[in-house]
């Protein structure tokens, strides 16, 4: 008797997070149709696996294949629909990575000795632009701070 869809849940339940091994990964039985064990499956292969399961060709006895968490989750219809969202993480560049330019070195661009970076920004940016305005305001702020003025924190 051919397998019916109602048999699916028990087979799909075999796709569950591993209790050991790589966190966030899941295991499914290896496909009968040529997927080697321990090779991560992509979404197409997962879909093919579901088709195999629907046709009753489950091959649980042949071992397991790991699906990384990035392959997405399976919805109740057995379709790998969950596209993982890309998270953006911002890291601050380490200061050691930034080498100060030597003004005498060929190929360099540098601020002249005695000129601060803020003054250079104020000079290089149009005074009517947002950057120019902010640079001038920052210079005023720094002066007020160094003089212990009313804006000093």
């Amino acid at each position, binding site marked *: 008797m051919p397998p019916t869809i109602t048999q699916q849940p028990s087979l799909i339940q075999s796709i569950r997070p591993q209790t050991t091994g790589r966190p966030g990964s899941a295991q499914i039985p290896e496909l009968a149709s040529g997927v080697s064990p321990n090779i991560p499956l992509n979404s197409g292969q997962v879909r093919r696996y579901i088709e195999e399961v629907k046709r009753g060709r489950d091959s649980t006895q042949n071992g397991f294949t790991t699906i990384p968490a990035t392959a997405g989750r399976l919805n109740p219809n057995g379709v790998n629909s969950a596209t993982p969202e890309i998270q953006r993480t911002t890291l601050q560049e380490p200061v050691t990575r930034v080498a100060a330019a030597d003004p005498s070195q060929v190929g*360099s661009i540098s601020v002249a000795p005695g000129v601060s970076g803020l*003054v250079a920004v104020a000079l290089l940016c149009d005074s009517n632009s947002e950057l120019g305005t902010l640079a001038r305001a920052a210079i005023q702020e720094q002066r007020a701070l160094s003089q212990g003025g009313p804006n000093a924190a």
Partner: protein
Amino acid sequence: MPPEEEKSALEKLEAKLKELWQGNGQASIISARHTEFVIEPKVFIGDKLHPEILKLLVTGYLANAAVQDSGCGGNIEVTPDKMTIKTPKGKSAVIVRDKQIIEQYLAQQS
């Protein structure tokens, strides 16, 4: 992170320079499967400006510089080896020894 209105002018300036840096394709992005790591530049190191941001600002400045900016009385002094951008008071502020930038500037002026 403080709200936008509580930020100092310096913090706002740093944020804008980082935007400029990223907008010009200078940002280092490490792409992993689920995460992208964006390495932000440290804009000011002490009172010095990050060399790459300085380069970005200088090239932008020179691209918009007019012919009268260089030469006698102008604020850009240029020789084939060295270019100096001066403050309005005539003091040297930025020294450029990048031949490619100098050549590009001279070609633009001719």
